């Protein structure tokens, strides 16, 4: 455990060295948040509610979605791709701790860094522009928090499994970009799924993406009753376990045939 805490701490220190990058990224995220918020405000115009959600709830949805995505930074993806490409995976593998736990510990470091350099500043900006994004109730807030943690787990496991492709293919730039835009769209991070056509929505509820953004956010704005929320948490947990099993299986196969090019 001590080793992992050390890794996370190292990661925070590394990120501190790139503070300017973090600030520019933060400003961009704020911009996006403001733009999407105003988009919803304009689109609602006179309308009271759509699909049982009011304009204010939609702005809360957007703000919290942006805050979530700043914490959902999946360093593991680039980490694996870079490590395989540069060959530093070899030194990572001979460390006396599990390879993927190492990457997970690094991402915990990323979360802590992002919380202070991204999420909190963004939250302040959001409060200034749109007011406080209040959850439906205190109960919903705690359920959201649980759902958010499960959502993080699903997202991390999925990204890590996805990044294992780096072991076989070398240039993953475009693939990651496709994945990023797809997940953004299919998880309801940008627009909630209730605006999608029926057939697409039904299909998407069979995939894990909605459990990364859409469901935690729906809980936050109070689209479900607390009892229903517990059911959602159950499905999230099931997805997390399922994805973890796939990941365990895949990582065993992938790491067996590591091919380090040069050094």
């Amino acid at each position, binding site marked *: 455990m001590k080793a992992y805490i050390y890794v996370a701490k190292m990661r925070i220190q590394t990120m501190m060295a790139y503070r300017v*990058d973090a600030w*520019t990224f933060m*400003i*961009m995220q704020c*911009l*996006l948040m403001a*733009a999407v918020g*105003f*988009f919803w*405000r*304009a*689109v*609602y*115009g006179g*309308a009271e509610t*759509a699909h049982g959600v009011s304009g204010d709830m939609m702005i809360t949805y957007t703000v919290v979605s942006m805050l979530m995505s700043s914490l959902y930074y999946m360093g593991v993806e680039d980490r694996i791709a870079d490590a395989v490409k540069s060959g530093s995976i070899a030194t990572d593998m001979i460390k006396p701790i599990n390879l993927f736990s190492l990457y997970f510990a690094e991402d915990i470091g990323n979360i802590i860094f992002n919380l202070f350099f991204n999420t909190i500043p963004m939250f302040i900006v959001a409060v200034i522009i749109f007011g406080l994004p209040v959850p439906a109730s205190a109960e919903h807030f705690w359920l959201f928090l649980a759902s958010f943690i499960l959502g993080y787990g699903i997202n991390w496991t999925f990204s890590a499994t996805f990044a294992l492709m780096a072991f076989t293919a070398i*240039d993953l*730039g*475009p*693939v990651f*970009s*496709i994945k990023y*835009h*797809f997940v*953004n*769209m299919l998880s309801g991070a*940008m*627009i909630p799924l209730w*605006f*999608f*056509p029926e057939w697409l929505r039904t299909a998407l509820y069979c995939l894990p993406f909605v459990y990364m953004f859409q469901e935690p956010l729906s809980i936050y704005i109070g689209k479900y009753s607390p009892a229903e929320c517990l059911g959602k948490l159950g499905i999230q947990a099931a997805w997390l376990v399922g994805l973890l099993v796939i990941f365990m299986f895949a990582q065993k196969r992938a790491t067996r045939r590591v091919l380090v090019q040069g050094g």
Partner: protein
Amino acid sequence: MKKFKHYMSVAALSFRLSMQSCMEYPAAFIGWLISNPIQFLVGFATIKFVVEEFETLADWNFRELAFLYGMSVLTHGLSVIFFTKTWYMGWDIIHGELDRMRLRPMNTLFQFLAGDLNFFGITDLIPGLILFIYGCVSVDFRWTFSNTLCMICALIGGTLIRGAIYLAFGSTTFWTKSPLHISGFFQELFNRTNMYPLSMYPRAVQFVFTFIMPMSWVAFYPASEFMGKESMITLPYGMSFITLGLGIVLFAIACKIFSAGFGQYESAGS
């Protein structure tokens, strides 16, 4: 004239080189050819699903929004072909890449921009063209002589405005000696103020992007003239010419900034 011909032949040659270097890794090229359009598809789907629900966005209906979106993505695609160099120019400057251009008997800025035309930009240009054609068809855009002329002016102007901002801010590295990772920020700003109607923002924001940082002229103002929309500035005719004029002026200023920076810059050693 002879000089002009010479410059054109150099540009053509460099474009061919860039095409060849892209084709060296066809898999990567095809990957980007698939992945780049997706982000625009996602943005477009957002408009479609949401605006169909509410019918209008700041008085623009879906067809008109498609037209605006198409114009905006097309100017983006064009700017990627001609000006991608400027996104990373900070690196080129601190790594002394510009030094060798100084030794050649040709305009430096021309060498810098045309010396590495970005064939990869085609992966952004293709979705731009498709969305543009889709938008024009869906609003039944009439290609009369005056409309065509206005459209050409708007597209050239819009591309130049984008390029000018990238070039001007990229040139700051000549003085600061450290690269500025700011092109993504400006791309986002351009997209947010042109892919959606500017009139959906509070008036203060509209004012900033109309007069102080005139970014909305890239596509929003010309498109709102074509569509006959009210906005912060409403002119009966000639928005596209303002776009073109603004593009030329801003680009000229950006060139001046580049030359001034390049003139006083003393390489980076190594």
